[in-house]
């Protein structure tokens, strides 16, 4: 299985956290709060579409509200495959991180 990219990992995690309230606006807000960076909607749309296409997400049409100009929401939900991919990347990261020599004091002396 192809490993997730960092952006994809962050997106999936945000959606998992948001549970029933995951749509582009909340996802963007979540990412912005945690990373402190602005995420353009264009980039989010493309990545979300790719994740749906790869089967890590499903999308559903939600309700329309007046503050959206009467337009409906596209709600995202993590699939089993998405959850599997997240666990896989976490396992790899943990494996890579454990048992490392001390990062801070073992570099070349300054």
């Amino acid at each position, binding site marked *: 299985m192809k490993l997730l990219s960092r952006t994809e990992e962050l997106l999936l995690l945000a959606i998992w956290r948001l549970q029933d309230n995951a749509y582009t606006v909340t996802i963007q807000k979540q990412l912005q709060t945690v990373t402190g960076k602005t995420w353009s909607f*264009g980039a989010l749309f493309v990545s979300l579409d790719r994740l749906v296409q790869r089967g890590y997400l499903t999308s559903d049409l939600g309700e329309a509200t007046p503050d959206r*100009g009467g337009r409906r929401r596209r709600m995202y939900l993590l699939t089993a495959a998405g959850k599997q991919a997240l666990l896989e990347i976490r396992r790899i990261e943990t494996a890579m991180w454990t048992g490392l020599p001390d990062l801070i004091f073992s570099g070349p002396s300054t």
Partner: protein
Amino acid sequence: MPHPPPPRLAETVLRALFPDEVDETRLGDLEEVYHHIGLRAGYVRARQWYWMQVVRAFLPSLSQRFAWTFVMLRNYLHTAFRHLRRHTIYTVINVFGLSVALAVAVLAYLFIHSEMTYDRFHPAYDQIYRVGTAIYFDGLDTWENTPYPLGDALATTVPDIAHATRLTSLPDCLVRVEDQRLETNIHLVNASFFDLFAFPLAGGADPALIDEPNTVILSDAARLRYFGTQDPIGQRLDLSLQNGSFSPFIVAAVAEPIPENSSITFDILISEAHYGTAFGEAALTEWFPKSRTATFFKTTPNANLAAIQTALNGLSEAHGLDRFLAGHEVAEKLPIERLDQVHFSTRFTNRILQPAADPAYAYILGGVALLILLIAGINFMNLAVGMSASRATEVGMRKVLGAHRGQLMGQFWTEALVLTLLSLGLGMGLAAGLLPTFNALADKTLTLQPYLTLETAGVLVGLALLLGLVAGSYPALVLSNFRPVAVLKGKLRLGNRSRFGQAIMVFQFAVSVFLIACTLIMARQLRHVSQLDLGYDAELLVLQDLPRGAD
């Protein structure tokens, strides 16, 4: 309170640019945030944010599109050169045909441009008119000669006139430079001549110098003829204005070369103060159009021409010019003609200005040039069709490997453009080489120099691009349309020409035969003219005009 909706234009742009990614829900997402920002920071900021999102979505895709276009273009050029090198005969025939056609087109353009812009180098040329005298003698005629006092009367009695000036021609005079005696034309003017006409003097010399008696202003051609490389300013030359007596003149200034397409030409300008000497003091006040004096005036902007004509008729009546009309009622007794119409006008009988030309020559030459360009274009297409047998496999292969039709069209069009640009270079060289011969034939002194500008280069490259686009359209549209499976199975039927192809072929041959026939007929006609028995032996006859003062 109703909130302003997000910019509709931005929504439309997004939809158009990203039809796959952007749907109602996405626009809804954007609108939600837009209102959020709008309520918190104002809708001006919100609108800025919205457009920023559009730009940020578009920029990466833009640079990507750009990069791919560039890569493909390089590939097109590469394959185009490879194809042209590999099919040498095809390339040579095509480039030869196109470059000859372009050379002809360039020469025709030079000729037509010169003819159509005759006398237009004078500032406000459309406010400058010449006056003639209506004479009834075996029918109505308009003389270019005008009474000498007319020029002075214009400024005082005719409305809407800014300046008036005269040009008096004194033909067949003698000029003596050191020990040489040469025949020449002398023109008499005063300083106002330079107010109307753009004949700048070398080194910015003051045109008022002409009003000094016994000074001359030389044309650049005359300077070269009389003084060669010497500095002519202050040199002496002797002119005989009448009866063989020479009087001394000093060169005061030299005019810049006169543009090739000028109806007014001169070699030697002297002051009008010598008019009395040349024509007799009585002629100065005589209302009689016997001397070779042309009169010009410049109107004020938006002048009332009808009022000017009425005033001129009044002048004619007041000074008894009506007696030349033999009692006939003529609407324009002192007819006027705008400067830019002089060259093609047959109304006036020109003796002072350059003889009038027939615009038909320009049109015919333009037509021939267009026909030749058309033939070269058709030739190009026919060759492309002939090559299509060998190219069909290439097209099929490319399609199998995933080339879009648009890319194949790009490839064929690039090939055509490379050919035409190559031909343009060669054609320009050819035109430059043929120009002296063409000048001798057309009795012109055209040069390429005034046209060596960025503007002309743009026009020429544009022309070549257009030619390449049109001529390359057949291979681009037809060859790129081959069905790969049919081609690769060898099922493509070639040599089965469409009606359009046949019609083009017939047209091309018809035009070729027409042009060749015209050339042959003209050649035989000219031979006939030169060999016709005139009844005398031209070899042993000499015609000699006696110059003034060569008793």
